[in-house]
């Protein structure tokens, strides 16, 4: 058997033949980045490679003195004795799968991905490979996503119903990706202005500069006396329960996450409403993707890796879990 193309080191996933790390959790020389979420893109490395549509977001997160090197989707690059390329993962704008080829062997690192269409980013492309390293955040069969349009319609009706009762609607979404996806999907229902928390606002501006079309937005500001009755406000979950919320007075709160699929999670979180909207792949999507890659071996990161590995092994697909430091932005 040829030596593994990717191993787990104390710094993160590492490709010895190419001499680079993938989404390292400690500073390294060369880091190939699948996407800009905090657990995948960290400070301190010398060189970063990112997919071209993700450069602006990566610069925003790393600070302007960093110059991540862009790779077009599908563009090939020699690193060490490997050939690498980045391909759309459908997770957030600029998210990528990493394809590594070396002496006739192909490994693909999925990063985070989903199979549902998303107007803010290029759709996931299944890649034929020998070994597929997949995320497994929602790898239990209870996690199956309904069509996005149904969820966004629920959000829209919730907003309207709150308005009728004279309430503001505060929707908590992860600030990078989820918020902009909701803003883009809302175009099918309205062209009304949505108010944004500062953390969501800066990222939404970056998306807009990249040409992503969304409903009009305004930042929630301290100075102006805005009446938020009947308005929709998008904020990161960290703002929940903070003094920042006081300005909205009576409001209804909602939370967008794949975890909202389970009633216990909805109730424990204490939001008025849970909307099942995830940027991660669901159970049927995982199985379908594994088939599409034709991989002979599956390695798993995030979430329910152990359960999925056991299930795949029972189906006769060789699989195991990798211990990584990746977290889950949907939990935050």
């Amino acid at each position, binding site marked *: 058997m040829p030596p593994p193309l990717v191993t787990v080191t104390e710094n993160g996933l590492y490709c010895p033949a190419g001499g680079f790390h993938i989404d390292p959790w400690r500073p390294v020389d060369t880091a190939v980045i699948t996407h800009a979420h905090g657990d995948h893109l960290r400070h301190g490395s010398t060189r970063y490679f990112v997919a071209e549509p993700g450069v602006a977001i990566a610069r925003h997160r790393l600070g302007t003195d960093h110059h991540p090197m862009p790779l077009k989707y599908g563009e090939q690059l020699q690193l060490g004795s490997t050939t690498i390329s980045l391909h759309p993962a459908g997770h957030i704008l600029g998210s990528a799968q990493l394809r590594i080829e070396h002496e006739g062997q192909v490994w693909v690192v999925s990063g985070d991905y989903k199979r549902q269409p998303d107007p803010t980013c290029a759709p996931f492309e299944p890649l034929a490979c020998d070994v597929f390293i997949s995320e497994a955040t929602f790898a239990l*069969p209870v996690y199956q996503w309904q069509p996005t349009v149904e969820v966004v319609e629920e959000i829209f009706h919730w907003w309207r119903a709150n308005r009728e009762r004279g309430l503001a609607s505060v929707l908590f979404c992860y600030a990078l990706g989820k918020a902009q996806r909701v803003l883009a999907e809302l175009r099918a229902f309205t062209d009304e202005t949505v108010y944004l928390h500062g953390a969501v606002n800066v990222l939404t501006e970056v998306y807009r500069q990249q040409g992503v079309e969304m409903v009009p937005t305004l930042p929630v500001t301290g100075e102006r006396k805005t009446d938020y009755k009947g308005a929709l406000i998008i904020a990161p979950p960290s703002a929940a329960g903070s003094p920042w919320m006081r300005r909205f007075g009576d409001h209804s709160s909602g939370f967008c996450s794949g975890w909202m*699929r389970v009633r*216990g999670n909805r109730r424990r979180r204490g939001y008025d409403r849970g909307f099942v909207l995830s940027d991660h792949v669901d159970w049927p999507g995982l199985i379908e993707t594994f088939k599409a890659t034709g991989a002979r071996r599956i390695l798993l990161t995030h979430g329910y890796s152990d359960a999925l590995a056991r299930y795949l092994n029972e189906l006769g697909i060789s699989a195991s879990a990798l211990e990584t430091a990746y977290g889950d932005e949907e939990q935050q």
Partner: protein
Amino acid sequence: MRAFAALYEELDTTQSTNLKVAAMSRYFREAPPADAAWATYILSGRRLKRFIGPALLKRWLIDEAALPEWLIDEAYASVGDLAETIALLTAGTAHSEATADDLPLADWIEDRLLPLRDADDDIQRQSITGWWRQLPYRQCFLLNKLLTGELRVGVSQLLVTRALAEVTGIERTELAGRLMGEWQPGALFWQGLHAAESPRTDPAVPYPFFLASPLEGEPSQLGDREAWQAEWKWDGIRGQLIRRAGECHLWSRGEERITERFPEIVDAAARLPDGIVLDGEVVAWKDGSIQPFALLQQRIGRKKLTAAILATVPVQFLAYDLLELEGQDLRAAPLRERRAHLEKLLADASPLLQISPLVIGSTWDELAGARADSRQRNVEGLMLKALDSSYGTGRQRGAWWKWKIEPHSFDAVMIYAQPGQGRRSNLYTDYTFGVWREQELVPVAKAYSGLSNPEVEQLDRWIRAHTLEKFGPVRSVEPSQVFELAYEGIAASARHKSGIALRFPRILRWRADKPASEADTLANLQAMLMQAPDEVRRSS
């Protein structure tokens, strides 16, 4: 069923009681009468008699979902609710909630579910798995909830009657009365709820119970001692004793008819004049004093009442309120008036019908002194009732308070944990605790409640990081965390490994300051058992 499924979800996800009431009112107004009646039945906490066990449903689910059993178990453990797990794994995602076929709730129950009770296994299985496949998620979830009989939805009887009062224009207390006892859901019942005149035709029907709230802090906050009546808080079964139309009926607070359980009390009541309703407590009573609840429990547990058990566990009814006299509803009268009538009524009644005596003490301090004797007297503390209060419905704060004594407590080590139900399904919230016997920790109690939410979450992370072994949903954990546990009663038990059964164990606090080695020993608990009265020790 679509509208009721939507209502269920709305009630389940709404925190505000006003919005819950509004949602129920809207449903009651729009639903067909028979559906509204069934909804009332379900929302007020009644359930269909279960005819299919959870083990069988799980079996069918394994086949339907075509997944291995361990994975179903894993999914169930993370969801925490069987009805929901089934719906998540089987509901046809192809059918959207809005467009799927819809059948009225009453038809679902009367034409589909109830007839299935007597059908053979194959028919039951085919019908139910067929519905799983057809129904969209919300309705599938509701169907499973109806089947498993666990339809608790977080609305109190009080909220249901509030909504019904808005819809019918009938007073809440009157409605609460009309919902008591046994009734058949249907259009006829729904019309009866709207009737201006009380349709009370069944003389067996009790009044809704008035419930006390726990008193936190000192009783001096209640104002003048003279405005309050103090009684012992008895440790028995709260009950309503009805003498009407030549018959006697005894109801428990859980609205269960317990007439047959206590024939001697019913016999004694037969000597009362007609048109009487008493509120009081059934207690085990021997040699002039109340006996521990554990003794009464032996009698409740028996299917058949033998002469021997009647002799071992004699009972008495301690009356503390009079709700009806000469067929007249007295509940609006002030307590001091009802009490005067009660004293007169029971002055020379059977010794099995006694009045719950007043606790003497002219100041709050003197009452606190009396309360300190509670444990010796086998009572749970004091009841404080405003003398000018009427007899309300449900738990309305302000007029009746229970001033309980602090429970017994000991320190134990957590040894197992498993996920909770429903809202706590993703957290390890059900714990098993042990005490030391030599080098070994012997399980003595399971407890769930008592920790704050942040503590529960912190403990959940700790459990995940310190798991020793997993058995299904249960994890054994490193025996290092100590908790102070409280209990209400202690008894010898041959069925428990420790030889001890605790009643109502609960967590008082997390003793992060204590090493496991300093937790209590089984010998300590046995000593506590020896201090408990004789009858408790003998009972098993």
